[in-house]
């Protein structure tokens, strides 16, 4: 990077990105299978006898857009962290088995046919959350046994646990009823449905709080990207930074997964895209990835909502189809200029 990152520059960039995010969210809220008049929305919810459908549709749409934004931000930031912690460009939030753990939890919830809700979330979400965190803990624990934060050990533990849980998932899918199978398949493909406002609120607290905390440790993450030994020589408490970063990234991924199922590609590609364009400094990489991830997923979800209307595509399909070519263009265009890629 030719210029130093000053707080003023950072604030300007984040402010601009937030403005783009707000504009995208506004435009996307006007797009949908039903046409909604803004004027009618502002007349309020209407009465019990004559509810205002415009208001309700807008409520659904907005909460879904906010959810997409939160999930996109969480996955993108978690992706940044896993890529630097594992020092592996192929790392994404699901690399250490979160996806299969969450998937297994979801399938168990569907098959057991529980019929309760916890704070407005279905058992699927609760089980997926528990499965995700449980798996991360297991992988972390096994990784520790192989040596104190031995990256290869951690990665291998992740791959094996992933394969094991995937096999369990396939077994359960094979004995499930067909409607249960479909219920899980759609969940596994990523499925954004608007939730209760309380859930959105709490989810927002977890995700935004997590991102701010990751932003705090941005300088340490910068040091870590040179390797543990170099970071230690720069005075960074490596073990502590890793534990904090790992815990927060896993936590916000688990929140995202329990809100939306498995949405692939965002956590892999957004961090790389932002790194290609803005450079690898984590102080801006983390907030900008979060905001870009949110923008990306809001747009992808809007496409998923309308492109085959009145049916809907799983958003995971759109993220890869839209994001893949876009990322390749970025890769070709910027890789000549960026030295760290070589």
């Amino acid at each position: 990077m030719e210029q130093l990152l000053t707080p003023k520059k950072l604030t300007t960039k984040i402010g601009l990105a937030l403005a783009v995010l707000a504009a995208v969210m506004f435009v996307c809220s006007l797009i949908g299978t039903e046409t909604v008049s803004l004027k009618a929305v502002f007349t309020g919810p209407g009465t019990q006898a004559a509810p205002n459908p415009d208001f309700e549709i807008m409520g659904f749409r907005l909460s879904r857009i906010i959810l997409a934004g939160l999930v996109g931000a969480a996955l993108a930031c978690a992706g940044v962290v896993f890529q630097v912690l594992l020092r592996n460009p192929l790392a994404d939030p699901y690399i250490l088995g979160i996806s299969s753990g969450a998937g297994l939890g979801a399938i168990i919830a569907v098959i057991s046919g529980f019929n309760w809700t916890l704070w407005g979330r279905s058992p699927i979400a609760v089980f997926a959350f528990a499965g995700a965190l449980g798996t991360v803990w297991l992988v972390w624990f096994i990784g520790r046994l192989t040596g104190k934060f031995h990256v290869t050990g951690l990665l291998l533990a992740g791959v094996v646990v992933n394969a094991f849980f995937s096999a369990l998932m396939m077994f359960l899918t094979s004995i499930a009823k067909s409607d249960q199978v479909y219920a899980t398949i759609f969940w596994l493909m990523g499925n954004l449905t608007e939730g209760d406002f309380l859930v959105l609120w709490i989810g927002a607290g977890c995700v935004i709080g997590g991102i701010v905390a990751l932003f705090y440790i941005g300088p340490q993450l910068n040091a870590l990207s040179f390797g543990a030994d170099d970071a230690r020589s720069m005075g960074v408490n490596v073990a502590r930074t890793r534990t904090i970063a790992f815990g927060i990234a896993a936590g916000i991924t688990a929140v995202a997964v329990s809100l939306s199922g498995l949405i692939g590609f965002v956590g892999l590609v957004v961090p790389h895209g932002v790194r290609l364009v803005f450079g690898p400094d984590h102080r801006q990489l983390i907030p900008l990835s979060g905001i870009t991830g949110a923008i990306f997923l809001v747009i992808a979800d809007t496409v998923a909502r309308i492109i085959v209307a009145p049916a809907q595509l799983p958003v995971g399909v759109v993220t890869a189809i839209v994001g893949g070519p876009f990322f390749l263009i970025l890769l070709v265009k910027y890789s000549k200029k960026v030295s760290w890629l070589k």
Partner: protein
Amino acid sequence: MNKWWWLLLIISCWMAAGVTMFGSRQGLENSGAPLPDRADRIVSLAPNITEILFAIGLGDKITGVTLDSDYPPDAAEKPKVGTFWQPDIEAVVAARPDLVITLGFEQQKNLAERLRRIGYNSLTVNIEKVSDFFAAIEKIGIATGRQRQANELISRIRTKLRQLASIVGAGPKVRVLWVVQREPLRVAGRDTFVNEMIELAGGENAIGSTVHKYPPIGSEQVIACNANVIIESAMGREDIENQRDRALQHWSKFKFLPAVANRRVFVIPGDTVSRLGPRLYEGTETIARCLKPHLFEN
């Protein structure tokens, strides 16, 4: 360390604010409104529910159906609210329903729950077995103020099934292999409504009880099941005769199976046998004609 405490404090305040703002509404919202005595704008989220509604004379009250609701032909003209597996909640609300009827599986239950939370009436019915189906007709009849028509429909179907039973009842049971999918081979197990239809039509499932509802089976079991008849339900819009030729060809490798040796492999129209709806009798009769054709020659 100061900034960490600030962050923790702000997050805690945020959570507390959320719980006080939205938490208290929870219990109230989940109760939902009571079902009305009659419904004038009904959204149906499954093709067999749509068929039930038409059969009890509520066709003109339907304001939204799923994409796969194609029977009776009038149903295909109704506004669409997404697919069976992924209903579009915006389209459901835009249809301004006073009653939304859904099936009991995850996606639909979830949609019904969300609609109930914002004050829409929804009715969830489970239609997995024949007895569920009759119970569902009754439930829908009550919720829409059409008990009489619903009871008439039930007794009409029951009477026809009884008549069919008296035709096919006597004589040995025909062993049926019901093929859901050829590659990899999956068949209908005992715990399905197809199994019930086979039994109503005077047959029995050639496959014994299994862990799976629709078990995948290997060639050995195909030979061991000793089926007298193989039935596949037709796929897509292609001509049934062509499909039957291909099926005969496919199964010809099992020469020793009675069904193949006697060329008793059938392909039958999918709708009436893959959807548990008011055409239950028609589907069962089609199966009975495959199993015991001599009883229907007159």
